[in-house]
Structures are given as structure tokens and as C-alpha cells.
């Protein structure tokens, strides 16, 4: 059995082993193995290639960009996705614009430990994929499975563009698989996580599992819900989403991030614009509430979508 977190570690080990251009840089990622142990033992196995950084997110990303321009393949670990706001400028203005401005690729991977867990509060729980996806020049990965955590991280390192890798902290220990994959869907390709015919849930990251649980619940009521795991939110696989909506006629987009804008807005906009005639009912969306992420589990459990609130939304959707 291997966890989602271990898969991330193994992907990094693989990348370091296969490619001398790869190095890892971040706070406490060296001997200590990272705040979440995502780089545990890697500094020991790859001396000099897993480097502790000062608490300098801007310089962390900036230096990774420079190294990438000189032919390296850096992986930057943010200690929490939330702290990437202070490295934001280098990501969106330096890394993301480099290829378009100069023709020189900027292959960096920025790992963002993302998403809510009970008790983490406003500054250790954020989902920032929509911020980065808004900017041209970035690839946004949001793996929902152990297999994808592994395969997509390897792919992220191989991709010539800057990749923002949103790994979900709630899945770190909760999610287990038997083994690591040998092949995987590529970036830009969504996955039908569960087939159904009555409605489609389009989602990603930890919300895939809440949605699957909601689908289970609705199955007991006789409904067959299809669940699409987007895998990458930029590029976004509109074809797979539309093909599903063509089968079901109904769509609910679910995201853990805040409600204004973001992935669910983008999904609804695309479905409405490109699949209007496939719809038998108004499309719906479900996000977290429009407040900071609360600390207390009671509040947190209500703030973000859950299997139960997704099931409730689906019941509304199915009735409409």
C-alpha cells in the first residue's frame, strides 16, 4: 500500500534518479524531509540535490526560474500553498511570461500543499488553483488519486512549462493505492471517475472523493451519477466534460475553493457556451462559502462542500 503522500515522494525520487537536471528546493526539505515528509530521505539519497531554502518564497521561485533557464528542472516545495502568495509575483510574472517573451522554456514545478484539513484555519487551508490558472503560461495540476499524484508529478517535471502542482493535504494520508502506475493519462485529459447517466459532477482534487461518496449515496436512491475528475484544470479538458454532459444532460461543478470565479465558474461557462443544447436543466455549482477557511472542524465541515452537500445539490439538480 502506498499513500498519496508517498506517491509524491516516490515521484520526486524517480525524477531525481532519472534526470540529473532535477533538484528540490524549499524550506526544511533537506535532512528534515519537509514539513509533511514529502521529501523524506531524498537529501540523504541525493546529496547536494535537495536543498533547504531560507524563508524567502520570492527568491525560492526566482532562483528556480534562473536554474531552469540554465537547463535545470527544479522542484520548489512551498511549505503550504497559502505561502505561495509571497512568491506569487515570480510565478505569474517571471515564470509564466518567460517562454512567450523570450522563446526559452521555463520548466519549473512548484508544489503547493493545498486544501483544507480539520483545524488548519484560514492560512493553512487555501486552494489557489484559480489564481494561477488565470495567468497565461502556466499548467495547473490537481491530482485526486495516488496514481495521479505520482504520474502527474513526474509529468510536471518533464513538461517544458512552469507547472503548479496542487497536491491536496487531506489526501496525503487518507488515500492509499496498491501500487504505482506504469502509465497514466496525460496532462490535459480528464478522467471519468465513475460512469453514470443521470447527472455529471465535474470536479477535481479532494472533491472527487466527496463527489464519489455523494454518487454512492444517490445510487441508493436509484440515481446514476457520473463523476469527472478534471486532473488538470489548465489545460481543461472540455471535450470529456461535454461528452459526459451529452450523456447525462445535467451538470454540477464542485470545487473546494471560494465561490467567486474559479474552476466551477469556468466549467459552467464552458458548458453553457459550448454545450448549451446538451443541457436538460440549468447547470449548478457548489463551492466553499465566501469567507476565509475556518479553523474549527464544525465550521470547516460546513464551509467546504461535502458528500452530503453535494448529494443535496444533486437532488436539486435531478429534480430540476
Amino acid at each position, binding site marked *: 500500500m502506498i499513500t498519496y503522500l508517498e506517491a509524491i515522494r516516490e515521484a520526486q525520487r524517480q525524477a531525481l534518479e532519472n534526470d540529473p537536471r532535477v533538484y528540490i528546493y524549499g524550506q526544511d526539505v533537506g*535532512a528534515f524531509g519537509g514539513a509533511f515528509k514529502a521529501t523524506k530521505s531524498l537529501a540523504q539519497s541525493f546529496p547536494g540535490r535537495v536543498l533547504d531554502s*531560507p524563508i524567502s518564497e520570492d527568491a525560492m521561485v526566482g532562483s528556480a526560474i534562473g536554474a531552469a533557464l540554465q537547463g535545470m528542472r527544479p522542484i520548489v516545495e512551498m511549505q503550504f500553498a*497559502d505561502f505561495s502568495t*509571497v512568491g506569487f509575483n515570480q510565478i505569474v510574472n517571471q515564470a509564466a511570461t518567460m517562454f512567450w517573451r523570450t522563446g526559452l522554456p521555463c520548466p519549473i514545478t512548484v508544489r503547493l500543499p493545498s486544501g483544507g484539513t480539520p483545524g488548519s484555519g*484560514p492560512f493553512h487551508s487555501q486552494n489557489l488553483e484559480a489564481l494561477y490558472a488565470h495567468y497565461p503560461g502556466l499548467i495547473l495540476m490537481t491530482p485526486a488519486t495516488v496514481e495521479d499524484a505520482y504520474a502527474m508529478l513526474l509529468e510536471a517535471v518533464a513538461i517544458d512549462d512552469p507547472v503548479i502542482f496542487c497536491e491536496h493535504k487531506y489526501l496525503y494520508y487518507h488515500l492509499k493505492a496498491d501500487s504505482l502506475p506504469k502509465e497514466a493519462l496525460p496532462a490535459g485529459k480528464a478522467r471519468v471517475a465513475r460512469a453514470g447517466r443521470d447527472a455529471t459532477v465535474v470536479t477535481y482534487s479532494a472533491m472527487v472523493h466527496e463527489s464519489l461518496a455523494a454518487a454512492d449515496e444517490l445510487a441508493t436512491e436509484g440515481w446514476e451519477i457520473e463523476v469527472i475528475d478534471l486532473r488538470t484544470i489548465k489545460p481543461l479538458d472540455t471535450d470529456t466534460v461535454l461528452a459526459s454532459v451529452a450523456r447525462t444532460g445535467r451538470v454540477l461543478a464542485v470545487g473546494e475553493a471560494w465561490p467567486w470565479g474559479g474552476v466551477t465558474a469556468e466549467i459552467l461557462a464552458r458548458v453553457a457556451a459550448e454545450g448549451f443544447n446538451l443541457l436538460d436543466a440549468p447547470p449548478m455549482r457548489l463551492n466553499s462559502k465566501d469567507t476565509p477557511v*475556518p479553523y*474549527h472542524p464544525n465550521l470547516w465541515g460546513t464551509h467546504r462542500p461535502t458528500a452530503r452537500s453535494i448529494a443535496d445539490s444533486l437532488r436539486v439538480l435531478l429534480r430540476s
Partner: protein
Amino acid sequence: MHDMFRLAEAHRPSCTAVEFPETYRRAYRWMLLARVAEEKIASLFRGGRIIGGVFLGRGQEAISVATGMALRDGDIFAPLIRDQAGRLAFGESLLDFTLTYLGARSGPMRGRDGNVHRGRPKEGLLPMISHLGAMVSVVNGMLMAHRFQKKENTVGAACLGEGATSTGAFHESLNQAAVEKLPLILVITNNQYAYSTPNHRQFACNDLVDKAIGYGVKGHSVDGTDLSACLETIGGAVCAARDGEGPQLIIASNLRLAGHGEHDDAHYISQHFKELQLGRDCLDVAQNHMLAQKWADASMLDIWLRDSQSLVEEAVAHSLREPAPDPAKEDWCALASRHLLEGNPPQPTHLN
């Protein structure tokens, strides 16, 4: 609230000499209370009663308490994760600590934020956001406001670890304070590690106090394990700031005598440091000092310990009885201007 620990304003150190032994005893008792309170929370954490992280100030009480005690009503305090002692000395209720750690609805953060992320900005106590360095410029702004408002002779203190000196926010805000000649006291506790990261991976200067000259601010170094030194140095720096001498940068050296958080066994802390003077427990040092100076005897220390314990037990017991937040009753509104919540009818704007 805790009357026996409520000190009259007049007893706080003024801009004259520190009044030993009284001040020292008071400081010690805040340190002790902080230590006892944090140990209680740590044991609740080990018992699975605390949700989220627990971050202790073990080994940092002396510098923290000195900061909290040097401040007075109207001043600003932006503590960080290891400032339980300073918070208490500044006037934070012990209940704010226990209610927040226990996630009670009745705590100052109402379960919306937890553990060290608490404060009462109206009372000058800023609730830290996690992003290191980010509170310093907020203190600057409060001091700028005081200047606009002709609120005189106030100061603001912000605490950071040495790791936070690597942030852009540290730099911009210290420079800003220097340009504005604000009465900012920036206390850097150099406990040799930022989480697991040793100083040689964090900065390359010989001594962090050497940064002061590059900002044009006054620099002070102090042994963070020595309460007397902390009281004098911080007291002096606060007086200087109050007297209009501009920002004061204080570097206190010590060792973190705990994990980064209670989840961390701190195995990476070098034995070497533990044997140095900076590896001492400031609480032991203070206790020995008082005994040596005959400012207290063993029975007195024992009474203070038991007083602290009963205060903490009481606060915890009270807090455990307090209800958790109820999501159904929660006001899910991030805006102060309710009329701008979507769904509420907008009001016409009259301009004048």
C-alpha cells in the same frame, strides 16, 4: 479577570530604570504561568483534545515577557507563535488562550481561527496571520495612525524568529519604520532554528544585529535566556522608541526547548547548542537568580507554581465547558458592510 495577575498600570516599567526585584518577580510569574499553561495545552494535545497545531514558547519566555511588560495601555503588540508569556504580560486573558486552543465559540476568534492566531486588535493586540513578517508593517501603520491622531508616546512591538528575517516583509517593514522614524520595537528571537533549518542555511551575516546599521536603526543584542538582561534591554529599547529615537532592533539569542510544534520531536537540534549558555532554560535561570538574590524562596516559588496551575486548570475547565461554534448559527459573512453582501438590497449613495 485573573486579579492576582492583574498589575496596576503604574507598576509597569516606565522610561526610567527597571525596578528590580519587583519587576523581576512579576516577570517570572508571567513566564511561569505561560509555561504551565502551554504545558497543559501540550498535554491536552497529546491526549487528542486539541485540533490543529500547538506551538510552544518553551525557552523563549524571558524575551517574550520582557517585551509584553515593557508595553503599556495604548501601545501595540504583535506577538508571534512563541509569545505566550508576552501576551499575558501585555494583558491578554488566559482564557483567550484556552478558549482559542479549545476552539470555543466564546473565544476571541470564535472558532474561526485557532491556537496562536488570536488577538484583540482594538486593545492593541494583533492577531497574527501565518505569513511570517506580515505583522510588522501592520504595527507600522498603527503607529502612523497614532501620529496622525496625535496619540503621543505610544510604541509598537513586533516579534519574529530569526528565520523570518529572510522574508521580504521583514525587510520592507523595518525599512518603512526607519524611513518614518516610527517607535517600532522589532524583537528577533534567534533560537538557532527555523523549524528544522539551522542558521547557516538561513543567513550568512556574523550576527543578526549587524543588520541594524543597514536600516539606520538602533540595534541591541541580548542573552535571551537571562531575564534580567531581557528586561533591561527591551525596557531600554522601548524607552528609546518612546522618546522618539526611532525603530529598535533587538536580537535575543536562545534555543527553542521544544519542537517547532508539538508534533515535532526536534531531533535535528544539535546537542552542541544545548550545552551552551544559550541552551539554558530561561525559567531555571530566573528561578536560580531569584533564589540567589533572595528575591524569593523555595516556598514562594512553590506557591506561585501552584497558583499558576490552578489558574490554568480553571481556565481550561471553563473553556472545555464552553460550546463549540455551531455552523448553523454561524454568520457566514466576510464583509463589515452587510449591505454589500450579495442578495441584500444596495443603498443609494449620496455624495457630499
